[in-house]
């Protein structure tokens, strides 16, 4: 005893933390004294506290060390000091996961748990449940059942909470205690009630009927605990999500009645639940919003925070409902808690009118530096959404964003600002110049390489097209002088774009690029040399192909093609045309050729369509020689919408040619058109150079045929009238399935067996992948597979043509070689509902063949 006090005095003299510098080894050494007799409770208690402290500070105990300490600790059960015993329980729980053989204390704990001392019982139960495993659980099951219905609340609560923990490993055992739990739920103690309700719900979670029964029982009253009521509100809200007719539900009435509960906790939970319900009506929201409004002026910060946060959520969907609270929200702008102030402002920004924006922005500006980055991002998002709402106010918001850009902040935050600025520049042409100059200023002092390169790229794209491109050059060239290699390279590319686009700037750009010829980094040097030489040629076509528009090939494809070329060197130079093009996913491809453009706003689709057209056209080999796409016209309907065939025409203008794209749709379900093309005859004698027919035109699936017309050299003679005739051959097909009555393509394939289908699948890659979904008329999977295999005449791989018994979905792998030695792989995923649905994915080394196969299946 003396010794301990001396030591403590020493420590107290040293620092305010007597546990500072405590080492694991020292503590373990001290723990050996647990074996001494007689046990000195205070001393042992102190050592246990030290072990706790060391563990809590994150020191890792080895299994051996932990086990040794644990065993020494078991000796302390001999003492009857309550403090000591409780500390032992605590440490048993702490060490349960790191020490071995912890179950040796089971009997001691069981004794305590059934003993007379109430103080021990609750804690012993919790410790016991922590160390027990499924085999031991059987042995203590009886005690647990008794404990759940024990009249001492702490014992009952402990048993219920521990049961919930046990559910994770032994759900079945705990399910057997449900009667006891139910009894506990009607306890007088509020916490016991809460724990019992929680456990009951957890046990019945997957049985929605049982849950709704339980809910309807307790919503009628009888819950005294605010915690339990909150839980019940949450369960009810979950149930409501699934219900179809919400208005008549008693659950809604229950939640609404909770808005008048005496506990704030419950009122808030109810309001929160109403706000978060799917498609809430304004009528349902009104009472919730009015209680939240009351909370806004509460002296408790948490209450204000919770209310503002929830109202902010309401403002996203029902801004009108929140306007009533605007006055209270404005008072919160100056709240000491910055989180509340930010939430209030972003809510106001959502509900506010155009006139209040200036004032709000000024107010936010005053405290932006005080709030965390996460909230700053929230503010930035709110501001940028506001920008699209009130485009006329762009200057205020742009200045605001720019000033935020100047302040300190992490990458995520800066990225959000840059994204918003870029968004504004793209949406609002008036804002372009101001926005670009803000971004220029930002890259002057930007520590994030990816943001800087992104902005430089944007400058290269947008800058040359502004009235005064020259002013951006300085900013870009500064980057060449001051920044790291990646940014320098981006800056060089950006400079070259100015040179290519703006004739007057060309000489200066050449001078600047020459300076980068001796850059220390390879990439920068290469780019500078490359661009310089192209610019020297001073040819528009070269500029456009190599500077303004990058390569349209897929990077992966190029890499593979080059790799292939280096492995098998040939006399011929590498042909870039063999590289697969960077095509859009097929789904998007389909959207553009869709028959009903009215379904989506035309101007929104405009920017991507041009690119997609360019890619589509570039994918047609006959058009390889005609250069880059200059402009695509909007689709023109050539036929009445009620006719047998619908044809739309899109005119693509190229430097020397015009390509007419005819999107044809067959509206007759019993006919299939083949070799569809449009014969064009021109009065002015323009030459039709090439015609690319659509191979097959099936019912309701658009096909495309192209006609290439060479433009005369004389540019004045471009106005012309064509008379068009749609030529095709008709095939009848079975109107019920839409499958053509014709033979498969067997003569064109050689069946090959691919022992490892997936490897070949990966090998061929996704470049020529096409995917389609079909509904088949067959009733079983086996039949469907048989049909597909016969129809395509390809070889099923990896035994995928055998369907395991009783499965409702299956994957079929097929392999074949098309004429010309092109590998074709088909993966068909089949699912059986009423009929068989098939999603087919075709891969081959030739895009046309993929397309052919896909269309052949349909």
């Amino acid at each position, binding site marked *: 005893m003396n010794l301990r006090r001396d030591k403590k005095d020493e420590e107290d003299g040293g620092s305010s*933390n007597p546990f500072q510098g405590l080492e694991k080894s020292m503590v373990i050494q001290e723990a050996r004294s647990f074996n001494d007799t007689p046990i000195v409770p205070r001393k042992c208690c102190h050592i246990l506290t030290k072990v706790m402290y060391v563990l809590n500070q994150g020191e890792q105990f080895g299994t051996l060390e932990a086990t040794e300490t644990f065993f020494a600790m078991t000796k302390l059960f001999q003492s009857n000091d309550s403090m000591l015993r409780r500390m032992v329980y605590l440490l048993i729980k702490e060490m349960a996961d790191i020490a071995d053989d912890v179950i040796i204390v089971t009997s001691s704990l069981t004794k305590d748990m059934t003993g007379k001392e109430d103080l021990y019982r609750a804690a012993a139960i919790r410790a016991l449940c922590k160390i027990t495993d499924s085999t031991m659980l059987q042995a203590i099951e009886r005690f647990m059942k008794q404990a759940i219905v024990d009249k001492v609340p702490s014992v009952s609560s402990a048993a219920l909470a*521990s049961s919930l923990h046990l559910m994770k490993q032994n759900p079945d055992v705990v399910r057997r205690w449900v009667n006891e739990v139910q009894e506990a739920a009607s306890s007088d103690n509020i916490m016991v009630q809460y*724990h019992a309700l*929680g456990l009951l*719900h957890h046990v019945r979670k997957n049985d929605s009927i049982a849950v709704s029964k339980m809910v309807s029982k307790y919503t009628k009253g009888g819950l005294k605990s605010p915690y339990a009521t909150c839980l019940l509100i949450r369960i009810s809200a979950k149930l409501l999500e699934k219900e179809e007719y919400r208005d008549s539900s008693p659950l809604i009435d229950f939640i609404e009645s909770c808005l008048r509960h005496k506990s704030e906790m419950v009122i808030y939970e109810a309001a929160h639940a109403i706000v978060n319900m799917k498609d809430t009506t304004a009528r349902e929201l009104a009472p919730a919003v009015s209680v939240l409004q009351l909370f806004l002026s509460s002296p408790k910060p*948490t209450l204000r925070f919770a209310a503002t946060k929830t109202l902010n959520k309401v403002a996203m969907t029902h801004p009108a409902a929140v306007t009533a609270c605007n006055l209270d929200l404005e008072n919160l702008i100056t709240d000491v808690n910055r989180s509340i102030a930010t939430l209030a402002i972003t809510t106001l920004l959502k509900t506010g009118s155009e006139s209040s924006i200036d004032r709000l922005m000024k107010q936010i500006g005053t405290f932006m530096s005080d709030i965390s980055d996460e909230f700053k991002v929230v503010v930035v998002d709110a501001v940028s959404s506001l920008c699209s709402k009130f485009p006329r106010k762009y200057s205020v918001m742009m200045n605001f964003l720019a000033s935020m850009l100047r302040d300190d902040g992490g990458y995520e935050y800066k990225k959000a600002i840059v994204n918003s600025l870029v968004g504004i520049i793209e949406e609002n042409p008036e804002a372009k110049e101001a926005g670009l100059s803000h971004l220029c200023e930002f890259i002057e002092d930007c520590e994030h390489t990816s943001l800087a390169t992104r902005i430089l790229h944007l400058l290269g794209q947008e800058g040359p097209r502004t009235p005064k491109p020259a002013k951006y050059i300085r900013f870009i060239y500064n980057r060449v002088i001051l920044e790291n290699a990646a940014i320098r390279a981006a800056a060089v590319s950006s400079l070259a774009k100015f040179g290519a686009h703006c004739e007057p700037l060309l000489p200066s750009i050449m001078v600047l690029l020459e300076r980068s010829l001796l850059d220390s980094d390879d990439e920068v040097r290469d780019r500078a040399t490359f661009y310089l030489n192209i610019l020297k040629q001073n040819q528009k076509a070269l500029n456009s192909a190599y500077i303004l528009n990058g390569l349209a090939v897929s990077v992966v494809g190029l890499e593979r093609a080059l790799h292939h070329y280096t492995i098998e060197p040939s006399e011929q130079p590498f042909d870039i045309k063999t590289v697969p093009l960077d095509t859009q996913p097929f789904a998007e491809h389909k959207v553009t050729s869709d028959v009903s453009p009215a379904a989506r706003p035309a101007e929104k689709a405009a920017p991507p369509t041009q690119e997609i057209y360019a890619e589509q056209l570039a994918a047609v080999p006959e058009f390889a020689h005609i250069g880059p796409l200059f402009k695509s016209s909007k689709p023109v309907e050539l036929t009445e919408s009620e006719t047998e065939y619908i044809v739309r025409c899109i005119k693509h203008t190229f430097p020397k040619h015009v390509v007419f794209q005819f999107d044809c749709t067959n509206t007759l379900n019993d006919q299939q058109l083949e070799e569809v093309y449009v014969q064009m005859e021109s009065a002015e004698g323009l030459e039709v150079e090439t015609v690319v027919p659509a191979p097959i035109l099936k019912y309701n699936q658009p096909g495309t045929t192209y006609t290439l017309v060479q433009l005369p050299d004389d540019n004045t003679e471009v106005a012309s009238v064509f008379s068009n005739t749609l030529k095709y051959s008709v095939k009848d097909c079975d109107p019920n399935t839409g499958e053509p009555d014709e033979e498969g393509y067997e003569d064109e394939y050689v069946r090959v067996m691919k022992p490892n289908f997936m490897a070949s699948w990966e090998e061929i890659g996704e470049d020529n992948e096409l995917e389609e979904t079909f509904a088949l008329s067959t009733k079983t999977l086996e039949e469907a597979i048989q049909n597909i295999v016969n129809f395509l005449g390809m070889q099923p791989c990896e035994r995928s043509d055998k369907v395991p018994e009783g499965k409702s979905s299956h994957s079929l792998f097929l392999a074949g070689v098309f004429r010309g030695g092109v590998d074709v792989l088909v993966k068909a995923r089949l699912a059986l509902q009423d009929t068989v649905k098939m999603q087919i994915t075709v891969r081959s080394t030739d895009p046309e063949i993929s397309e052919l196969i896909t269309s052949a299946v349909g």
Partner: protein
Amino acid sequence: MDTSLLEASLYTVKAIAILDNDGERIISKFYDDTFPTVKEQKEFEKNLFNKTHKANAEIIMLEGLTCVYRSNVDLFFYVIGSSQENELILVSVLNCLYEVISQILRKNIEKRTLFDHLDSAYLAIDEIVDGGIILEADPAAILQRVALKGEDVPLSEQNFKDVVASKLEVGQRTMKVIQSAKDQLPWNFLKN
């Protein structure tokens, strides 16, 4: 901030922490694997401390979590839950924690006194939250369960006992000396 409703569950509290005025951990318990390693936990605590030690604002959102806090002199009390959790429930837990610790420390909420009663503080936290479930949020009930026997005896009294014991010991030792002196006396006489 996603709009989905929180799963109805008893697991409410993600962590409880008591930090000192340097942001160092005194006690902290993390109840789920939001921060699986102690290193990540301590990083989070530091971050939390940096954001909260200046302004006494009671609530903050950090790394997608709702943190409520209170402080006194050189101690900071935190209760942390999911961002969709009912903030008022978390505050009720925080208030209970603060009240209980305050009682244990006899209203003397300071780091120094907390270290003298660290064992009771561990027990109290264990009684408030068990593995993320709020076990009890009534300070009076917690104090009763922690049942400060032994430790509950005021320190002066405890010291008194010790003092008495050591006095007794001293007394006994004196007796022994006298006894041995007595034993030796005849011998001395004999020698002379």
